[in-house]
């Protein structure tokens, strides 16, 4: 893969954005500043950013409850995302979506879905529209190892195979669905399921390596762009935090050693080492980058804090494009 230093640094920047944004959000949930809960992508940044950077700016993407990482990876500004998590009027969805139900159409994010599996058909449809309109856009569906057991994935794989749709099915296998270890509820290997649906299936065993992810997804995206149809990419990774912030299960379903070993392989640390080793950036430059990102997050929080809550009447807007009745 031919990547400019600028692109490589952009990868690190986006991974850092996800990390720092999610860390801040996690704190804010625990302090009660964010209502409900949030699901962080901490630990999975390489998988998210490697996939997003393989897409073009105009390409489409759909996601799931682990929801901020995706738009951040695709280039969303942080302010409106943070404001959305808090429920402010300046949120990317005016505060109506919230953490799990974000979208940022400006960067091709067609929606994160709180319903596991439910956004896979949406990405498939975006690919259909690219195909019918001939606009060359590629679509990517993010979903977890848990979602890989929802039937709609296989309907989507089949129909996009038949129609040769420009879509990439990207399974974020962080090895757990909430408290449930993937191996206890998955028969066979997810990537291997592609073959039966007539498409390539790749398993990226080291999902902590952003370049490995980038490479695998780029192959799939290019194939899609050439009109050769869909692919399935499974990326093996790990979430460092609890399923969602603030969730307290009495039992730990994850082995402490297993966890420690994965945390050891922090994708941001690994990639920083790579950048330094390859002479792409100096330690000072990378420190500066980290400081910049931290400032961005601070700014996003400031923006959020200073933003008003939406007017109660907003609850009654945007259901329909053309309102269907008198508002009393």
């Amino acid at each position: 893969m031919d990547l400019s230093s600028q692109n490589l640094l952009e990868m690190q920047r986006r991974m850092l954005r996800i990390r720092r944004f999610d860390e801040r959000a996690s704190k804010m949930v625990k302090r009660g500043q964010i209502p409900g809960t949030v699901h962080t992508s901490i630990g999975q940044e390489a998988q998210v950013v490697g996939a997003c950077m393989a897409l073009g700016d105009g390409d489409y993407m759909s996601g799931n409850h682990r929801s901020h990482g995706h738009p951040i990876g695709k280039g969303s500004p942080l302010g409106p995302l943070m404001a959305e998590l808090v429920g402010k009027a300046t949120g990317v969805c005016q505060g109506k979506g919230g953490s799990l139900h974000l979208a940022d159409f400006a960067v091709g994010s067609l929606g994160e879905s709180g319903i596991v599996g439910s956004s896979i058909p949406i990405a498939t449809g975006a690919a259909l529209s690219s195909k019918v309109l001939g606009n060359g856009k590629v679509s990517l569906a993010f979903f977890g190892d848990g979602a890989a057991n929802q039937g709609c994935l296989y309907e989507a794989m089949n129909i996009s195979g038949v129609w040769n749709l420009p879509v990439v099915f990207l399974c974020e296998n962080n090895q757990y669905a909430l408290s449930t270890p993937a191996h206890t509820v998955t028969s066979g290997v997810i990537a291997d399921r592609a073959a039966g649906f007539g498409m390539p299936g790749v398993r990226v065993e080291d999902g902590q390596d952003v370049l490995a992810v980038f490479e695998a997804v780029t192959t799939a995206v290019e194939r899609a762009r050439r009109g050769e149809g869909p692919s399935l990419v499974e990326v093996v990774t790990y979430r460092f935090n609890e399923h969602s912030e603030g969730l307290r299960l009495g039992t730990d379903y994850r082995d402490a050693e297993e966890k420690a070993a994965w945390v050891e392989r922090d994708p941001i640390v690994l990639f920083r080492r790579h950048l330094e080793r390859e002479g792409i950036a100096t330690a000072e430059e990378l420190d500066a980058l980290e400081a910049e990102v931290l400032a961005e997050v601070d700014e996003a929080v400031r923006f959020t804090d200073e933003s008003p809550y939406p007017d109660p009447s907003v609850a009654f807007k945007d259901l329909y494009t053309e309102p269907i009745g008198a508002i009393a």
Partner: protein
Amino acid sequence: MTVMSYLGAIGAAQREAMEADERVVIIGEDVEANVYGTTGAGKSRKDKGDFLEMFGANRIRNTPISEEVIVGAAIGAAMTGLRPIVDLSYSSFLYMAMDQFVNQAAKNRYMFGGQASIPVVFRSAMFYGLNTGAHHSDRPYPMFMNVPGLKIIVPSNPYDAKGLLRTAVDSDDPVLTFEACLLWGSKGEVPEEEYKIPFGQANVARTGDDVTVVAISSAVPEALAAAETLAGEGVSVEVIDPRTLVPFDTEAVIRSVQRTGRLVIADPAHRTCSAAAEISAIVAEEAFESLRAPIMRVTTPDTQIPFSPALEKQLYPNRTKIEDAVRRVTGLMANTLNTELTSPAPRM
């Protein structure tokens, strides 16, 4: 004017919509071979005018049997520039894609703060009354009425079927059409020129002074027949066909009840939480002072649909049941509990 069947009118609306806008595509099982008769030229099934030949395979999308992804993909496509018409054939198959209807079609625009519109039409036909058994006879529009964000149309004649479907395709919001298979063959006059019928405007199918009958879908011709009979008995019945259930023309019904003081609702759906329940509740709240008699619902009782011809027909609202209900609210018949009307319906 030209005479068209209900089914022909749907086909004609689809053809016009496809011609008017390149972004309109048709997606569904067996649409290529025109199995359900709305993607052909309206003449024979295989002739020059076939949709596939007219519009090509890029816009006529024959699908696998995969309702969930069909519906979801149509939503995704609608969010990104297409205006799909999805043919789901039987209404009883909608459940297969329920999550996509409720959690995606109805919610996305709202959740995302209006970032996208979802201009998609989901067509399905209700095959009740034709001995097709419990898996093929559903009339599930009430459950979709409970989902804010969807629009719902229930045309009862060729003119409405064509005009409402054109409006549906123009709508930037998701629309579900529930077509009554019982009416497919019914003929009616339809203008030669293009026309569209606005949503939320009821059709007063017959004017009258003594009783308002709101009738839905295939109950409309039954109500009109009942009104004719009752006219002979000196009872003047107004028949209102709402045509669209969401949005619903509340004003038309209220205005009529304010005049007649009596309301009967004929609705082929199952009784509990039916469209009839909603209409009754609206009137009991907004026009109570005008009411001079109980509001009576003539619905399908809360049982599933049996196959046997000895069992099925008795279940649906028909002219006789509508007549009886009108006689009761006008005092021409003893006004006992409604349950005897659909006897021996289970009562709950």
